[in-house]
């Protein structure tokens, strides 16, 4: 079980690092997918090793995948709009909320 959890942790850490450091908005979205999947692995792992008779974890993982798909749609739409308005998708340049 530890190997699974370690995998999930590594994946999550890679995702966080990606979110924090990528300048490309698409890259950030991809890193977010990584984090989702790390969580999914966690859910599935705990379901398998703690309560295999119920399918709670499995169902949760499916829900997350669905939500992630929806989130990817919204995220990509935002990125598209960013591109139209800034002629680029460099997150570092988009700072209209700055003081």
């Amino acid at each position, binding site marked *: 079980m530890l190997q699974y959890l370690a995998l999930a942790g590594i994946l999550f850490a890679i995702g*966080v690092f990606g*979110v*924090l*450091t990528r300048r490309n908005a698409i890259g*950030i979205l991809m890193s977010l997918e990584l984090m989702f999947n790390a969580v999914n692995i966690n859910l599935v792992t705990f379901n398998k090793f703690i309560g295999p008779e119920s399918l709670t974890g499995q169902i949760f993982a499916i829900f997350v995948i669905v939500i992630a798909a929806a989130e990817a749609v919204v995220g990509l739409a935002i990125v598209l709009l960013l591109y139209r308005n800034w*002629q*680029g998708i460099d*997150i*570092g*340049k*988009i*700072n*209209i*909320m*700055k*003081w």
Partner: protein
Amino acid sequence: MLEKAYLIPLYPLFAFVVIIFFTRWKEKLSSYISISAILVGFIHAIFVMAAMIARHGEPLELSLPFIQHPSLTLETGIWIDPLTAVMLLVVTIVSSCVQIYSLGYMHGDPRWSRYFSYLSLFTFSMLGLVVANNFFMIFIFWELVGLTSYLLIGFWFEKDSASNAGKKAFITTRIGDLGFIIGILLLVAYTGTLNYQEVFAKVAEGAVPLGILTAIGIFIFCGAVGKSAQFPLHVWLPDAMEGPTPVSALIHAATMVAAGVYLVARSMSLFVGSVEASMVVATIGLITSFLAASIALVQNDIKRVLAYSTVSQLGYMIMALGLYGADVASDPHAHSVGYYAGTFHLMTHAFFKALLFLGAGSVIHAVHTNDIQEMGGLSKKMKITGITFFIASLSIAGIFPFSGFWSKDEIVVATLGHPIFMFFTLLIAFMTAFYMFRLCFLTFTGQPRNQDRFNHAHESPLSMTGPLMFLAFLSIFAGWVGLPWLSHGFSSFVYHGELQHHGPNYIMMLVSTLVAVSGIGLAYTVYYKKRISADAVMEKFKPLYTLLYNKYFIDEIYDRIIIKPTLALTRGMWWYDANVIDGLVNFTGWLTVKWADAKMWFDKYIVDGAVNGAGYICMAGAWLFKYIQSGSVQFYTLVIITGAVGVIIYRVTPGGFYYYLIGLVVVAVARLLAGMNRPHKVSVETEPEG
């Protein structure tokens, strides 16, 4: 007509109102309104007199309550008795003459209409004073007389001397009025009423203690002293000569100065209660009469001589009334003619003194000077004026059968039983005859002493000589109503107390005639024949002459002991006011301003400082923390994750949390330092578009 007697004062009041409000711009019309009003009053007064004779002098009282209060009722009303009827007639006659005369005298005056309206108001006041039936009303009219005399004496107010004379008359009489009102208040306090008849009835019952009655008498007499120009308040009257001459005639003959005598006569029932008060009255009258007559001996201003003559004659009347009061007070059934003599002389004097003043006015009108030393020989040019003036002089000197003879003779008779009074009365009669004929001879006979003025002299127009002739007629015959042989003459018409019959006193007639004739004879010798040089006599009695010429220095004494100290005191008060009081006020103001300044400073720097300070602190905080708001999503995410990690660490090992925080700070500082060293925003600017 008798019941309508209250209308008599209202005619001139009506004229006054109409002139002031409607016809002021039409000069001729204004004067005619004024004159016709007074003539109507005159005719009415004749009817009143006739009615009064018809009912044998039985008085009539009409009154309406004016202000009612449980403790005191003030009323407006009229009281018509023989004295009132006589006064009404005298006032209206003299006033009519004066107004008609003014048509000529005031010709071309720029304030013509106003002059006539004032005359009307003056006449109204005097008539109101005469018909009043209580002390409240008489006081009101008394003050009105004072006001109008002020207006008329100061009528030519462009002249300083005239406006000062007006003020002097007003203020001097006001001193007497203070006494008058104190007397009235005392009367109210002790009798609870103001109506003449009620007051006199209460006094007769003995409601007022003797001492108080004496005080009341003297206080009321104070009013008369002021108005009738008795010593020591006589100083205003000679100065009042600054007014137009017809006004002088009116003031001196019938209105203002007669008011004081009338008041004493009217209040006689008070004076007969107190010997002391009456003796004060008589003594003041005598002193006044003597002082004024002696001053008149040496004056050179024609109007001033007449003015002092008036003061002297008023002293006569007051003295006679006072002696009557004293006689009756000591013996209720005493045989005294004083009351009758005083009122009779008031009447006859009104006519001949009005005549004298109007004659003097006529002379002044002709030669444009008041100085008799510059006149002389004027009877050649002014026949009517000269003759009427001589008639009046004979009358005032007391020569048979002119009217002055009859009244003056009665005054001499009134002094029977008072040797000192009699001596001085005769002496004054002598002086009167002398100074009047000195005046006559210097003015109308001899050679002109100023040829230039003489050449310009001319007889006055008919509007002026007409009244002169009419008054001359009265100066001769008016006294005949009081012939001692008449059983129903003046003495049985105007009397006080019980009716007494006074027969003729031939010895007194002879004595007074002798005195008068010798006075005239002396004047004739000195000023007509010039057997005795007036200048030589003057040189011989230089100190006396100086004393008399300067009117006993009474004005100067008043100036020194009253006016100067008062001025000094007021200056002191002014200084105190200007420096101490104002200083205090200004200091308070200054202090307030300074205090306000201090508060303003506090408000500006402390209160506003606190408010602004709060704002500045907020701004400073915002300036510091706004950098958190970087607008970078990744930075926000970093903060969230850092925070989440912090929470987890805290949950797991609270101790480790601090190391975590320190680590964070170190990283942040390191980042900042690194950011500072890095060229700012280079990447943004150099990066190609893309």
